[in-house]
């Protein structure tokens, strides 16, 4: 029997979240608004990264593919004069095409080899940006990237308005990613992760599905890169280096990747801790140390990620009410 009260609470939570997101820029300072824009973009990065990890492969090339989207969108709009909204989509498509091409060498590898192989492929792309001054601008990158065009009286130059633009684009993308995961394709990704030989034996072409996951994840990473490029107005090879990638990996693992919301929780909580709380404490040079200590504490004490706290909190509020998650847990314990 579906629990009517649970769904009311879910709706209430969803509406409260939406309202909170909509009023957020009004209550933040200017610099915090900038952080909020980047946070919304990073949510798309980390959610698309999770789609990739569904097939069981951990890539270290995701941020570089985000960069492919950023560079491509910047070049299309700046050098060829393509309107920015179109160039953003073209950037995302470029990232998807790049991922499709990279699939052929990379999906010969698995596990740790894939991890490092994807890293190497990403580094090659990044070094190409660094080496060729035309058209990529060399180590200094591309500057004066055109911004998003005004729609009527609304200018997207301010972080406040750009925040709403990002919110809409990211919400639509996250919804699409959610539907993909819940579709047959998503189930197949799960199957490949847990039982790739079995999946193959029932006729699943694991290479094509791995490639599909990689291309879809890279498309949305490229889109987030395009959102980034036209907001900041400049891109350079250092912005997409392995250090940035490590942050994405950290968000995903500290948040937990077993659920759809885990990585989102990870990126939001860690960004708030690092950019709001630690910064306001005034620990400029020592900030990475505290961040490192928090990472260690979180993997030691919350090995299943921040997401494992959510059912506990739900139970605390819901009392002994039997939620679907709880039923699954009880069934597991009983077996």
């Amino acid at each position, binding site marked *: 029997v579906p629990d009517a009260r649970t769904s009311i609470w879910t709706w209430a939570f969803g509406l409260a979240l939406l309202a909170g997101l909509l009023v957020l820029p009004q209550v933040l300072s200017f610099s915090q608004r900038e952080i909020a824009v980047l946070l919304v973009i990073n949510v798309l990065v980390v959610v698309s990264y999770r789609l990739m990890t569904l097939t069981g492969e*951990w890539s270290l090339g995701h941020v570089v593919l985000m960069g492919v989207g950023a560079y491509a969108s910047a070049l299309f709009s700046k050098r060829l004069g393509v309107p920015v909204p179109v160039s953003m989509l073209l950037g995302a498509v470029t990232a998807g095409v790049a991922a499709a091409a990279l699939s052929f*060498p990379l999906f*010969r*590898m*698995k*596990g*740790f*080899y894939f991890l*490092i*192989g994807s*890293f*190497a*492929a990403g*580094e*090659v792309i990044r*070094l*190409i940006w*660094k*080496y060729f001054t035309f058209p990529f601008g060399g180590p200094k990158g591309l500057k004066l990237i055109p911004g998003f065009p005004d729609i009527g009286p609304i200018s997207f130059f301010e972080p406040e308005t750009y925040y709403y633009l990002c919110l809409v684009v990211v919400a639509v993308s996250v919804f699409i990613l959610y539907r993909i995961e819940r579709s047959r394709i998503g189930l197949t990704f799960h199957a490949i992760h847990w039982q790739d030989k079995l999946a193959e034996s029932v006729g699943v072409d694991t290479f094509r599905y791995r490639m599909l996951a990689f291309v879809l994840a890279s498309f949305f990473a490229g889109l987030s890169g395009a959102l980034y490029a036209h907001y900041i107005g400049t891109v350079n090879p250092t912005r997409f280096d*392995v*250090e940035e990638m*490590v942050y994405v*990996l*950290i968000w995903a*693992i*500290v948040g937990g990747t077993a659920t759809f919301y885990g990585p989102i929780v990870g990126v939001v909580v860690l960004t708030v801790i690092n950019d709001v709380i630690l910064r306001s404490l005034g620990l400029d*040079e*020592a*900030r*990475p*140390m505290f*961040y*490192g*200590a*928090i*990472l*260690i504490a*979180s*993997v*030691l004490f919350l*090995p299943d990620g921040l997401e494992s706290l959510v059912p506990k909190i739900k139970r605390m509020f819901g009392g002994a009410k039997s939620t679907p998650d709880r039923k699954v847990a009880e069934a597991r314990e009983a077996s």
Partner: protein
Amino acid sequence: MTELILQTIVNAVYAASYMSLIAVGLVLIFGVMGVINFAHGELYMAGAYTVVALYSLFDWPFFVSVAAGLVFVGVLGLVMEYALFRPLRDNPLGGLIASIGFLLILQTTAVLGFGVRMAFIKPPTQAKIEMFDGVVLTHQRLFVIVAAIVLLTALYFFLRKTRFGWAMRACAQDKEAAALQGISLNQVSRIAMFIGAALAGVAGALTAPLVSPTPYMGHSVIVTAFIIIIVGGIGQIEGAVAAAILYAFVHTFVTTFYDGVVADIVGLVLMLLVLVIKPTGLFGAKDRA
């Protein structure tokens, strides 16, 4: 032209020496504990800063400082093993994140203690060997080459000829079977972590006067070390040494005759080629993922 080529060979031998010290430590840790130690470059940095502190600031003799660096970084390895990798033994991704956390802590400590600027160290000796006309090998570089040969040979005999070495190799092959034979996983992990970290520390300590340490020097080193252990096949010590030599020669020659960025690209493409042809590295076992 001949002397340029000879000089480049000498430089490549030096590069291969310190790269194999770092890569072998990383391989040892991965082989025994199954965890990717992202903080390995920072262990190398910690070795370099031990020399900055003891030799440059407190005027200790150079080789005493290097020995202190070996012990200090080895102990750091023991701390990592005890505090991070032991509780996370069944959680390789957790171990990876924990080592990134430790990396940030070490880096920040170096920044707070010594500042972000390069630390200049007066080389303990300016002496050099002139082999042919113009081909030069400084003693400082010679120390690194000798240390690599001596330490790696010692490690080889340790792993092949002693009970500890057998136990360690048994753990690398099959943890459960090794534990059933009465081998203590904790002790083997401790020893592996100490040796692996100490090798990185020695490499850092000996190269400190040559490279001008910065708190972020570990970054490029770890990237190179990953390439090397992948080309060699993960968990293969001989493979790591062979790959270090191959990579050092290719990289040094391309850097000398073209440019550093091209050398990086060539190194990475070479590695991708190896992986496409043989997805488990040159020396890797056939079926290890």
